[in-house]
């Protein structure tokens, strides 16, 4: 009954959905994905309960949406039609929102976002600096629609791009539109998507596959996750269009099993698309067949690498293989295969709808469009941000991100996940695009951005990422497996005060060989954290090796906590909290730390209100 058989049928459905909507009805949008970490599901439950109690079902609709982006301030609740933006909403606030905002139209000042400097309340999302500088193309639906309801997506022009490509364009025209748009792969490599499609569509063979890579594994990154959770249909639509363009009739979405909500929403979206006839046989009467299934990954980081991902889908253990042959010629089950990141696919419907010229006008000359970054670390406004490529790091970190927490100084930003690099303050005005990042020794990666302040030790940061990669390396090739092991050993020695003259040179030498000799991109980019920190923070390495000091106060063997006599007012707080009893002193007189007993747990350092505890 629901099955749509023609393009006009889709248009009629859209009109009827819009007609059904009651403009008088208040819609309350609540993030039901990322904000669950801050108990947003309890907020939703509370809303539903109160609405039933007060018999307001006809006037109010509660909509669980995807991520709104401003994760720092979650759970986020937006009250339509005025679009009042409430943050950090707790279940206790629900009754007030209903009685004041919904019924009386009053804004609850305690729940709106306040400017940290002026303390001025800001009521609407569009006025908050976090959103002002952003340009939402890919994530524009996330936070606005219910990801588990296909009609919500159809109402916002969903599947219109699919209808356009299937009826008004030939597969070759779709490929050429993708080429002309200049879009590059959003998974990190930055290979032009259109060119990949062209190679695959020209490859001989009847059976072809199209795969979406949702195996996001970088520490601190959640862009792909929130796209899959918040707007699964845009990925599905992009994949059907891609399948039509290259001549694939089967698609696979590879999602790691650590993302249960993403798998749930994607499965639900696939099921609904099948019911509506947007997946399956003869889509919209175009004689094009396309099926889609989900393949769940067991969570190996290396399975984000394209050849390893395909081997994993085939049911073997995920280890990369040498290229050539490239997957576009010989991929999954030896057939021509296109593999793109889920974010790339989510861009496709917009490109088809608005045209390649529109898209290629956004961004820089070499990197078109927008990119979603997950902004995390010591920055004030953590969350997901989508900006035009070419936006500077300063704009992202200081204007959107609101600067560094606790008024500390910015030190570096790690872009591109564990295989990315650390970019220092001197490069903060650099435009963010594929080429400038590579030049600076980092990579775009899938879009992680970890901001670090002066309390981060760069040698320790490098050690952390190398440790992560050492455990995630597949172990097939020698430079990556043995190289990471030795690299970790050298960094560990430096951090523990056993660094030697020549260690920096040995690290650079080893890194050079790993970059050129490794089998896949994991090993090839693994030395980036080390190379970039040596390049920009060599003095810190030298302080560790020669002076046996950790200037940031992170490496426990290489610093001491001391109490500044002038600042300490003898409040005894540190003395009470010290688990070792290492702090002594009389009330209202400066205290002292016994370095013999101190285990450098840092409790005194973080609780002292007068900042009297120093790193020496």
């Amino acid at each position, binding site marked *: 009954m629901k099955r749509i058989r023609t393009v006009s049928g889709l248009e009629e459905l859209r009109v009827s959905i819009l007609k059904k909507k009651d403009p008088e009805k208040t819609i309350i949008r609540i993030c039901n994905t990322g904000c669950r970490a801050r108990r947003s599901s309890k907020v939703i439950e509370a809303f539903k309960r109160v609405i039933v109690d007060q018999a307001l079902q006809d006037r109010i609709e509660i909509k669980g949406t995807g991520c709104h982006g401003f994760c720092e301030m979650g759970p986020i609740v937006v009250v339509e039609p005025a679009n009042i933006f409430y943050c950090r909403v707790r279940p206790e606030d629900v009754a007030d929102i209903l009685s004041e905002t919904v019924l009386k139209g009053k804004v609850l000042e305690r729940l709106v976002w306040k400017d940290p400097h002026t303390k001025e309340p800001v009521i609407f999302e569009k006025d908050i600096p976090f959103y002002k500088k952003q340009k939402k193309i890919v994530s524009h639906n996330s936070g606005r629609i219910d990801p588990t309801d296909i009609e919500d997506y159809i109402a916002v022009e969903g599947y219109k791009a699919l209808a356009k490509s299937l009826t008004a364009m030939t597969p070759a025209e779709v490929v050429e539109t993708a080429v002309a748009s200049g879009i590059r792969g959003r998974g990190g490599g930055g290979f032009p998507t259109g060119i990949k499609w062209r190679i695959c569509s020209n490859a001989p063979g009847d059976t072809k596959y199209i795969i979406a890579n949702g195996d996001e594994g970088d520490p601190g990154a959640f862009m792909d996750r929130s796209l899959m959770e918040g707007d699964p249909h845009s990925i599905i639509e992009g994949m059907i269009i891609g399948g039509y363009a290259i001549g694939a009739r089967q698609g696979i979405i590879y999602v790691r099993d650590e993302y249960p909500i993403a798998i749930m929403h994607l499965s639900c979206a696939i099921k609904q698309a099948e019911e509506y006839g947007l997946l399956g046989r003869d889509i919209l009467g175009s004689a094009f067949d396309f099926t889609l299934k989900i393949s769940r990954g067991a969570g*190996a980081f*290396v399975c984000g690498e394209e050849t390893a991902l395909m081997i994993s889908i085939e049911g073997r*253990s995920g280890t990369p*293989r*040498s290229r*050539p042959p490239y997957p576009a010629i010989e991929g999954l089950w030896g057939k021509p295969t296109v593999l793109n990141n889920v974010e790339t696919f989510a861009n496709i419907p917009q490109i088809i709808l608005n045209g390649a010229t529109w898209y290629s006008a956004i961004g820089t000359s070499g990197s078109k469009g927008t990119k979603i970054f997950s902004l995390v670390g010591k920055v004030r406004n953590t969350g997901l941000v989508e900006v035009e490529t070419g936006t500077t790091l300063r704009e992202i970190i200081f204007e959107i991100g609101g600067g560094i927490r606790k008024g500390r100084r910015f030190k570096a930003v790690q872009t591109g996940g564990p295989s990315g690099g650390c970019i220092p303050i001197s490069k903060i005005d650099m435009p963010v695009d594929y080429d400038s990042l590579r030049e600076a020794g980092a990579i775009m990666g899938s879009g992680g951005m970890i901001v670090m302040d002066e309390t981060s030790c760069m040698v320790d940061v490098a050690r952390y990422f190398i440790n992560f990669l*050492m*455990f*995630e*390396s*597949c*172990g*097939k*090739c*020698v*430079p990556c*497996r*043995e*190289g*990471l*092991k*030795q690299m970790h*050993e*050298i960094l560990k*020695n430096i951090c523990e005060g056993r660094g030697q003259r*020549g260690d920096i040179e*040995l690290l650079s*030498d*080893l890194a*050079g*060989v790993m970059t*050129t*000799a*490794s*089998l896949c991109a994991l090993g090839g980019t693994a030395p980036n954290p080390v190379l970039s920190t040596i390049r920009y923070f060599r003095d810190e390495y030298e302080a560790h090796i020669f002076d046996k000091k950790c200037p940031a106060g992170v490496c426990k063997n290489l610093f001491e906590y001391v109490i500044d006599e002038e600042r300490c007012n003898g409040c005894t707080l540190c003395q009470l909290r010290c688990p070792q009893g290492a702090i002594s002193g009389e009330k209202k007189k400066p205290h002292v730390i016994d370095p013999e007993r101190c285990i450098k747990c840092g409790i005194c350092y973080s609780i002292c209100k007068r900042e009297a505890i120093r790193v020496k």
Partner: protein
Amino acid sequence: MKVAIIIDGQRVQIDRGAPIIDAARKAGIFIPTLCYHEAIKAYGSCRLCMVEVIQNRQSRLVTSCNFPAEGGMEVFTDTPRVRKIRRVIVELLLARCPDVPLLRTMAVQMGIDFNRFRKKEGKECILCGLCVRFCEEVVGVGAIGLANRGTEREVATPFKVASDVCIGCGSCTYICPTGCIEMVPDEETPKLRRMNLGKLSLSPCPNKYQCETCSIEQEFFEDIKRVIADFRGNHKRASS
């Protein structure tokens, strides 16, 4: 189709798409390798056979064991970049397996007299995967595989229990470049022979594969039953 490529100044005729290393061997040029064998598919894991290739006026470093030959290609097997990669790889492998004679010989040939890497292990297996691939591709048995990931990677039988498909042919012993697989005749089950893969001993099942009467198996199932019961109990409590 035959194509002509130039290796270290020598012109060599070879099938298009064949690995470069075959062309080099034809021309009598030695390229060191630890994971390549003509009888099985190239794997590209040791990275020792890297060479510099100039193709379409672009220079790149590739593994000669699996990079396909194309007409007009120029190959250099002994450049400073190539030498540096080989040296570091041998150093890395020697840190893992300090006592393997083959690696020590290679180190001497490359003029390595001091290993700069401080973390030393006493392993014998270099994880080239020759035994695993030979067992699968040539013998057609697949009794052993590569288990675990990264630094934990090792050659093992499935679940590290004695293999009931191993025919004791000894191919793995023969092909292993470091000699870390040893064959020991086993009197109880003459068909299966015990192999020592480094520290891992692959002894046959003590219960002669009588799983249904095996106490290990019984305990395992008891454990599983308990876990499932716990899980259901929790699930019920959570939903009620």
